[in-house]
């Protein structure tokens, strides 16, 4: 663990994590200008709005994954399935039980969290390796349940016509309105994550990640804090799943497999481990990559080129920039501003 951690430690001094949550609100508000302007005067196509929605939704999921990987040093291969669980629960609650959207959204986070606590109770008492294997199995198992438990999930065919979310009678039919809603949720969750990381629990997690033995000697219960990090990350991923289901209004079991879990991992590692901004940059990278690749003439012909490139990027980043690309940007920015101030 030593290499990765020391890199993170040195980097976090200059990272944007140190700034106040207020900056998240400001960045979020600037970002909201895009849908608002688009409502008045459509510049971006419908598909671009969908893409931005995807970026925001997967940012929430990556944020959750980062709490687990970045702050407790654990790898999960089942978070794709947890996201699917959130999606199916939210769809079921709004379709069959006709619960209001906000309640369904909340439960879509809470129920995967309860399952996460159950699994964590078993797998987290052991070494790091075991959580990865236990969640790999859980991912396969949950996907199997999605296929077989047809009353709940409609099996292979998937669930169609998931209701359009509405809050207090206002319906988020248009992509722009949906983007505004999901961005507000993202900003809230980012601020929550910030406060969580800077609370007693968060400090305990960071201490634990850097040296399990030292933190144990200080009286930190490894198991308890790992469990908190794991369950919180499943909550975030469940919320993201719910937002995904109501955006596309169609979900099927194939979406929530190991590929999605690997994508989430890639988002966090490429963007920046243990960085809230990094999760969002990583999610944007993974979501925008297919759009960029469509326009590259030679590579366009290769199917799955995105999957291959993501894998290559993941490995390159972990070998050469274990702190993720966001910290490279921050470093570059610091260098540029420093040079300017010297030349003056």
């Amino acid at each position, binding site marked *: 663990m030593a290499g990765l951690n020391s890199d993170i430690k040195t980097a976090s001094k200059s990272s944007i994590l140190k700034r106040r949550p207020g900056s998240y609100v400001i960045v979020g508000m600037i970002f909201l200008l895009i849908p608002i302007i688009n409502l008045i005067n459509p510049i971006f196509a419908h598909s671009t709005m969908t893409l931005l929605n995807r970026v925001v939704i997967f940012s929430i999921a990556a944020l959750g994954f980062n709490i687990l990987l970045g702050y407790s040093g654990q790898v999960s291969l089942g978070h794709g399935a947890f996201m699917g669980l959130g999606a199916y629960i939210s769809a079921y609650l709004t379709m069959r039980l006709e619960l209001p959207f906000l309640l369904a959204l909340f439960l879509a986070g809470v129920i995967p969290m309860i399952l996460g606590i159950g699994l964590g109770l078993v797998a987290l008492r052991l070494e790091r390796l075991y959580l990865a294997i236990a969640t790999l199995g859980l991912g396969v198992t949950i996907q199997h349940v999605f296929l077989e438990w047809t009353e709940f999930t409609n099996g292979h065919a998937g669930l169609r016509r998931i209701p359009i979310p509405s809050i207090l009678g206002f319906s988020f039919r248009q992509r722009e309105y949906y983007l505004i809603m999901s961005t507000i949720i993202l900003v809230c969750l980012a601020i929550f994550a910030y406060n969580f990381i800077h609370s007693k629990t968060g400090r305990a997690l960071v201490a634990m990640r850097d040296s399990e033995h030292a933190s144990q000697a200080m009286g930190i219960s490894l198991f308890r804090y790992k469990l908190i990090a794991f369950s919180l990350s499943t909550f975030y991923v469940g919320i993201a799943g719910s937002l995904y289901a109501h955006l596309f209004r169609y979900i099927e079991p194939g979406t929530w497999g190991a590929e999605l879990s*690997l994508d989430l991992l890639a988002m966090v590692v490429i963007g920046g481990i243990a960085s809230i901004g990094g999760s969002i940059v990583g999610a944007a990278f993974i979501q925008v990559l297919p759009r960029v690749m469509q326009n590259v003439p030679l590579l366009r012909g290769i199917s799955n080129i995105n999957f291959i490139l993501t*894998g290559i990027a993941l490995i390159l980043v972990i070998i050469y920039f274990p702190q993720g690309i966001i910290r490279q940007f921050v470093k570059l920015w610091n260098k540029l501003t420093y040079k300017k101030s010297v030349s003056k």
Partner: protein
Amino acid sequence: MTTFLQNVIAGIETGSLYALAALGVVLIYRVSSVTNFAQGEMAMLSSFVAYTLWKNLSFIMGGGDLTYIVAFIGALIFAMLFGYLVERIFIRPALRGSLVGKMIITLGLIMIVNGTARAIFGTDTHAMRRAITRPSFYIGNLLIRPNAYFIIFLTLIIMFILFYLIRNTIFGVAIRATAENETTARLMGIPTKKISSASWIIATVLGAIAGILIAPATNVHTNMMADVHLKSFIAAVLGGFTSFVGPVIGGLIIGIMDNLVGYYISSKWRTVIVYGFLILILVIKPAGLFGKVTRKKV
């Protein structure tokens, strides 16, 4: 009784293949402390190579046994090269990296290998020929499937060779020393880098053999190893990552259980039940049946 016996034999057949794959995982884990999550995908690619060689050579050499043997050996040579290259290109640059970092590299490898396989071979399902094509026959009530016995026999031989290598040769001593403590082993003059290469080559070949032999049952497609891969990991957890005998026994137990659950309880839910069994192992015997609990000293 005969049905029960039939299921147990089928369980030993698949179980020995899980055991081969699990041995590869444990070997790499012990020597280079990497949990190779790409083992299944690498085996899948080797199986595709075997299938492609066999299909294409059939046109030249006819569909006889010789063609199959040549394709099999060709795929194993490919697996050797593949394992060597993976270790050289992806693992060695990160040798000094963290454990989680190395684990993440193998996860990235899944994406690269699987994506490449789908790009080259497509997403179609292909039927692979059995190693022994002689039809099944009955002795009394018992159905004898020559292919199953061949698989069990072959994996037994491979395991004996492997255990002989590890226990009784200087190469095996080097492997065990590296597994115990890499730095000390290097100071004692053991070429640990070569040992690491060798362990990746052996593990990839083991995976390839498991993949090619299981291919007639699962068919050859890019997702063929997902289930096998998970079960070989469960076998490794059950047997314990710290011993070489454990995963073999673990693989056999998982194979037999998988078949019995599939036959007597529910074939739909058997993966779920076997997974529940993994959780149970983690609760009762966290270090596995043959594993030792290791305490790290600060």
